[in-house]
């Protein structure tokens, strides 16, 4: 797992394979440092998850990437070019949806898309219809946005990000306001565009499960700082061994763990999460049995992404 400190900027020779890179990106609002020396690296073909609690600096980072706000220091390189210095060439290749998408309420969904597509030089209304169909709004494109639910606006926001067939799509909380089926649809659409067309995605979210299911690489941001940046699979493979033990009475079980100096990470569904590998579990089971505890569950395992996230952000999970 790469830590922020162990993740120096790559040499320029590596720029070609990096689609998006932030270098020492920092944003201060008065005394508040919203983003602090952030070094992200999104590679071509990634579905890159930007994880963080509310207020961690995810949206501020995305706003700096699409130059809605200016960094206090640092820079953003997309396709090897500085976004602020060569914004037109860069933004031609990027589609973005920042926060809850807002449209002109007095226009239809389709008209909104046509106008926005026109700004990018697009004239083909068939492409607008295609994007509406991709997000499941083909039947509602003729309705005014005023009557759209938040989920429909979210879908329309995704459609506008797809219009120009961008190489990199940046989505800020794309599943906000969607129903469970909508979340699945969007996840599948992202995966399909990535698999079939090689589109790279940067997705910010606080929904750990979604990130785990959708992304191949992830960064955890806390208080504006990068805590972890790695491949999701490798992150889970290298995760600390954590066993799940459900034994009663609890007090007796806790005494056994204390005596054997087994670290209790937390509780989950009335079960202890213990920092120990499968080998140690055999001894723990024997000790619990000797102390008269009933053992209902004894499962070796590893930290989940959620536990890694909570550990990195200094939170503990409780039952």
């Amino acid at each position: 797992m790469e830590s922020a400190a162990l993740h120096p900027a790559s040499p320029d020779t590596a720029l070609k394979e990096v689609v998006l890179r932030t270098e020492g990106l920092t944003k201060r609002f008065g005394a508040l440092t919203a983003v602090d020396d952030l070094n992200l690296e999104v590679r071509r073909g990634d579905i890159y998850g930007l994880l963080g609690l509310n207020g961690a600096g995810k949206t501020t980072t995305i706003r700096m990437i699409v130059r809605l706000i200016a960094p206090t220091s640092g820079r953003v390189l997309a396709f090897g070019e500085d976004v602020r210095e060569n914004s037109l060439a860069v933004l031609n290749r990027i589609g973005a949806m920042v926060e809850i998408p807002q449209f002109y309420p007095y226009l239809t969904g389709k008209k909104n898309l046509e106008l926005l597509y026109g700004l990018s030089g697009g004239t083909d209304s068939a492409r607008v219809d295609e994007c509406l169909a991709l997000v499941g709004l083909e039947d509602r494109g003729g309705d005014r946005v005023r009557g759209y639910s938040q989920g429909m606006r979210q879908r329309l926001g995704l459609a506008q990000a797809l219009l120009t067939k961008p190489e990199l799509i940046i989505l800020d909380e794309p599943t906000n306001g969607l129903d469970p089926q909508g979340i699945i649809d969007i996840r599948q659409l992202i995966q399909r565009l990535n698999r079939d067309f090689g589109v790279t995605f940067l997705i910010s979210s606080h929904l750990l499960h979604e990130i785990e299911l959708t992304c191949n690489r992830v960064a955890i941001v806390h208080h504006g700082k990068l805590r972890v940046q790695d491949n999701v699979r490798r992150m889970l493979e290298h995760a600390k061994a954590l066993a799940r033990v459900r034994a009663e009475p609890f007090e007796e079980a806790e005494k056994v763990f204390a005596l054997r100096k087994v670290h209790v990470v937390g509780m989950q569904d009335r079960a202890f999460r213990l920092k120990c590998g499968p080998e140690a579990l055999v001894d723990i089971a024997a000790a619990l049995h000797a102390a008269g505890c009933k053992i209902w569950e004894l499962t070796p395992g590893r930290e989940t992404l959620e536990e890694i996230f909570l550990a990195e952000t200094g939170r503990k999970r409780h039952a």
Partner: protein
Amino acid sequence: MMSRVGRLVRFEMAKLFRQKLPYVVLFPIVASILLVMVRGLDVQGEAVADPRIRNGFEYLETSCLWALRLVSVFAVVIASLSLSGEASQGTYRMILVRPVTRTDVFISKALVIAVVVIVLFIATALLSYLMLHLVHGFWRDGSYLSPLNEGRYTLMGEEVLSDPNRAKEVLAADFRLAMTLSILPLLASGFFGLLISSIFDNTGAAVGLAMFLAIALYGFATVDRQAGKYVFSHSLEYGLTVAKHRAEGYSDRKWEDEEIQRTWMVPLLSGVVFLGAAYGIFVKRDILT
């Protein structure tokens, strides 16, 4: 850059004409022209037996003055909505993530304001002139405006009001000059609204402050006439007021080169300052909404 600005102008126009506001605003402008002209007809009707025969050009100037005051209010409102509206709706997030620069967006917004003001200005002038003909029968023999054609004059007490030497063509030239002098103050009003709009994310605050300041400046210019000459919106009054007085027959009322120059320069310089300041604020600010 031209093609990007062109696309943005089309974008802005498409949005503008799909809103109710422009059509709602047209109503009072047209109504003010009609009201003044129709009222003029009534007075003219009574005036057949009244020695105070009034001149149709007086109504033309009056109707244009009222209509252009409304246009200037509309220019302030629409301009103060233009940037703040995008910010408050959060639609900048859709526009600025596309391959357009903030300079493109700003130029297109300013151009659209200018185009709308000019279109309303031309429409006001044409409609007023048309109404002058329709209501006052300007082209017919025996029209109520025959004094101008026939050298008759108007009396108010002992005073001669209509100048028998001031022909219809002269008054028409006065009208054209007066209208030409009005265009820059109107544009300056629009750019003043744009400046206020660049500061605020909230449309209510932007429109409210822009209107308050515009009215306060107008009030100041009315109270302190000497200093008021340097208020951009006050210049709107000069040309039409002089033309009206001349149409009324005040033979001592002349066009003054110094005033004409000021009527050009004050709104021109004000407009440039407003545009420059609005641009500076807009390109530097963070879009946080």
